């Protein structure tokens, strides 16, 4: 039963990622694109967790943690660039 639920969830998250990519391409403004990227990395974390569940291993959690940290820093850097025109002043 877990296997079936896992596949349905995987399909949902992949669909969600595709919708994010649609927003990423469509825009219309730069903040929309950054927001789409932000949501995309959170979806990537979900995908990695699901992969770990499917393979029955916890090794991938470290990768998920790194993506969480790096994705947040990336979002903040991009938002700061949009606001100030430079990342490090």
């Amino acid at each position, binding site marked *: *039963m*877990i296997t*079936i*639920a*896992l596949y*349905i*969830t*995987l*399909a*949902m*998250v992949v*669909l*969600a*990622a595709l*919708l*994010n990519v*649609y*927003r990423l391409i469509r825009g219309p*403004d*730069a*903040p*929309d694109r*950054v*927001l*789409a990227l*932000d*949501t995309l990395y*959170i*979806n990537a*974390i*979900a995908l990695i*967790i*699901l992969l*770990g*569940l499917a393979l*029955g291993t*916890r090794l991938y*959690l*470290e990768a*998920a*943690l790194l993506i*969480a*940290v790096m994705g*947040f820093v990336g*979002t*903040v850097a991009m*938002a*700061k660039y*949009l*606001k100030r025109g430079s990342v490090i002043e």
Partner: protein
Amino acid sequence: MSEIAEYVIAALLLIGGGFTLIGAIGLARLPDFFTRLHGPTKATTVGVGAIMLASVVYFSVSHDGIGISEILITVFLFMTAPVSANILAKAAMHIGVKPMDGTRGNPWEQ
């Protein structure tokens, strides 16, 4: 693995996937930037949180102990989601992104 644990894990996975999808639908179809901000900050965060909880339950009933890493990731996501939403809203107001027609009140600029 017991029957109940299986049901719990499957339900958590489906709830998580559903919320993640709803967050993305919100991002794709809401009319302007400021309304789009609401989908990802709430729905997606809760969705990933539920998936993470499913992972915690799965690994704690199957073999090795409670997953601390999952809980750390979830806490981290819940702490950072409002911060990124806030800083993105600031950036959008600075650039002058237009709110949709019918928005009452004004974004201010400092």
